[in-house]
């Protein structure tokens, strides 16, 4: 029951966050030194067509009215028209949001995989552990675009296209699709399509996950080490539990709450690192859309992406808080 109350409270605060985010993005658009109408009609357009476009975009209205209609539109899922592509932004988002969410989901999953496996290597003193630590630390200290390009070099160029390095699929989307290609492939019962989508996901997800995975590993390894030294671990041993059981039954769970907190932060950063990664892998997601929109000053598009990323961030954090409370009963949801 408390979980439901907590989630609904968080969703309430989500609305507040989104409102101020909208206000911020809208204001930025107004004070920026670029004329959206010019972006829309092009530099060589006549004065009449500029005026006509201004009216068409609603930019001749007073600013509060513009803001109002922007908010009303956004609530209905209508983010207006992209100034550069002249298509409704909502249509763009419909294909790009699943692309980014799919990539982010896989990257987070890989983060956990890297984090957990590396954390278990940490506790093993030995050549392999030391070597893996070295490799991953080097990887974590490199910016994600470098990882991205290196992995393209290794897996695509040197290994003769072992893994695809561009796009989301060799086949293109299905007609009635969720936009999550792996899921689509499974829904349509096509192992080929699914496997192809997974292959496309691996490199970009890995590039986005390395840094956060190593960070997670450190926190997790520290947590496990201190859990294993704790008095209750000693109690478990005194009651005859073997080391493996102490680790599984007691240490992992106690070590996972700081790791979860970190994961929440990493999830937020993940979205921003995807902006770069998507560029490198020609991934048609929100990130590449955003960087394209920033380049031409397409403010309605920028605003829409910011709002969606903000919402994703708040929702992710809410989920992590619920998970934290589930893992550690001393954490009260408040």
């Amino acid at each position, binding site marked *: 029951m408390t979980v439901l109350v907590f989630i609904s409270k968080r969703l309430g605060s989500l609305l507040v966050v989104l409102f101020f985010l909208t206000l911020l993005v809208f204001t930025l658009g107004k004070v920026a030194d670029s004329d959206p109408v010019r972006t829309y009609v092009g530099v060589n357009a006549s004065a009449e067509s500029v005026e006509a476009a201004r009216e068409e975009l609603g930019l001749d209205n007073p600013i509060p009215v513009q803001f109002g209609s922007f908010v009303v539109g956004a609530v209905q899922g209508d983010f207006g028209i992209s100034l550069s592509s002249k298509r409704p932004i909502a249509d763009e988002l419909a294909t790009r949001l699943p692309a980014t969410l799919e990539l982010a989901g896989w990257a987070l999953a890989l983060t956990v995989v890297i984090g957990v496996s590396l954390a278990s290597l940490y506790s093993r003193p030995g050549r392999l552990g030391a070597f893996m630590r070295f490799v991953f630390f080097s990887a974590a200290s490199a910016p994600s675009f470098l990882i991205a390009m290196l992995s393209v070099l290794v897996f695509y160029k040197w290994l003769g296209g072992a893994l695809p390095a561009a796009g989301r699929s060799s086949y293109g989307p299905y007609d009635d699709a969720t936009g999550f290609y792996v899921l689509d492939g499974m829904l349509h019962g096509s192992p080929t399509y699914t496997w192809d989508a997974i292959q496309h996901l691996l490199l970009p997800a890995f590039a986005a996950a390395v840094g956060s995975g190593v960070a997670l590993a450190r926190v997790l390894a520290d947590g496990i080490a201190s859990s294993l030294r704790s*008095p*209750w671990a*000693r109690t478990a041993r*005194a009651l*005859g*539990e073997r080391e493996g059981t102490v680790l599984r039954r007691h240490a992992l769970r*106690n070590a996972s709450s700081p790791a979860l907190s970190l994961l929440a932060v990493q999830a937020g950063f993940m979205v921003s690192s995807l902006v770069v990664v998507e560029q490198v892998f020609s991934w048609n997601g929100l990130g590449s859309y955003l960087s394209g929109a920033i380049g031409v000053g397409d403010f309605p598009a920028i605003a829409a992406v910011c709002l969606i990323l903000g919402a994703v961030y708040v929702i992710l954090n809410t989920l992590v808080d619920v998970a934290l409370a589930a893992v*550690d009963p*001393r954490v009260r949801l408040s």
Partner: protein
Amino acid sequence: MAESTVLTVSDLTVTYRGRGRTVAAVKDVTLSIAAGRCLGLVGESGSGKSTIGAAVQGIIPADGSAHATGGISIAGRDLVPITDQAWSQVRGRDVTSVFQDPMRSLDPTMTIGRMLNRYTGSAEASVAALERVQIRRAGDVLKKYPHQLSGGMRQRVMIALALAPQPLLLVADEPTTALDVSVQAEVLSVLRESIEGAGCAVLFVTHDLGVARHMCDEIAVMKDGVVVETGSAEQVIGEPADDYTQRLMASRITLATDRARPVGAPEPAVVASMQDMLDDLGRPDDAVASAWAAGELLWNRFTGPTAAVGAASGLSDVRLVEHVTRPSLTVNEVDKTYTARVRGRKVGNHVLKNVSFEIGYREAVALVGESGSGKSTLLRIAAGIETPDSGSVDSQGVAGEGTQVIFQDAGASLTPWRTVEELLRERIEHTTTGKGLSRAEMRAMALRTLELVGLDESVLGARPTQLSGGQQQRVAIARAVVVPPSVLLCDEPTSALDVSVACSVLNLINLLRHSLGISVMFVTHDLAAARLIADRVLVMTGGEIVETVGAADLAQDITTDYGRRLVDAVLA
């Protein structure tokens, strides 16, 4: 008789290797315990008693730094050399244990039921196990997490856990040291009855001879890794043969301890440095110091000055009058309620109910009560760490600057990456006395204070983790008094310390209060310690002061039911 011997330890030696040195924590120890008997292993920190407790469970550190030779056999099974295979057959079946810290010895993420069911086999058996340790409404307790239980309840759960596998040997390592005195008595009696019911042998590790006498059939006294005396409990306690045992007995604080006799006179160096300090404070030194040493300097606002003060200290009449009229600490109708949200509803916890009292110049007042009585909140309010909802606290005494606190866990109260000199300097710099002093002057001040608290120059450069528990508490005290406060607030400063160290810390606080003119507010759950340090004892329960009593004849003078309960809880 031989059949019933459960534990035999013969010529056990345990060495630790570290930093190129090898230290023998236990040397050639030989012990045995028969079924149904309880052997007390008594000694101070570092005596090796806990190492033996760990060794007979096979849980001495597995990182290769510890090495055991000699024999341990449990129910006829030889366990040295210690191999994991051998121990995995024994640990948790034939041997289990109860540890000191009930707060952290239970996995915080598991319900009691989930922990207990694993060893009892079923929820019904778990309920029965909890009922055996006198937990009522055991079904509800099974659903709770450790943090939802009190310390005493947690320790009962620990006992139930330890006895669930029906072990032949139970190792109890300081099982009640972290508990309130009155809770300790309850838990000890629960432990005693459970053990009698289970019929197992018990190795009872403790630093407290009183607890050992209460619990054990036989007692082995340890010092520096060696058993110095073994015998029946009555014999060891009643007619201790060994020097060390006698000293350990003498340093115990009970309600009968002679208050007039400072336990262990201050060392000459301490007296000398005290006189230096009195010089600095512009007070005539010799007279005050000797008056203190003679026990004549018992002055406070409530008992009135003895002749010694006026004559010996040479304080002017004016200041004396000032002292009389102006307490060092005035707590005036302080009220405090903590509110928490439980399932969306606000729940208030009225921790302090209109509390008023005063502490006179150079007077020591003890606040005694159990956990939850509000005494620690009161201390935090007096220290300015928390603000009262209503009422006021005034600590503008005649002498000294403000209030300073010393805490139970001295180690945790000292910033770990600072050296002792830096810690003291930090305090000096924050006082008006310390304004404009040079590094060298502050260093000299720090040094004098360290000598005053019985430490020397060698600790100036040390960091807290390099010091023993007693040394840490002395450093904490030095930091508090390097610029004398008007009131020294002590939050259970001795309850985590060995008895002999605790005594010397109590003496030290007493010495400082007389020599530096500091008033003391001493918060404790231990009536015996309170009686030793304080002039007056305030008994607190439920956020109120229910009784104020002179310390000297405390045991006779206490009249309230609650106070009597506290008196009875002090183990004779």
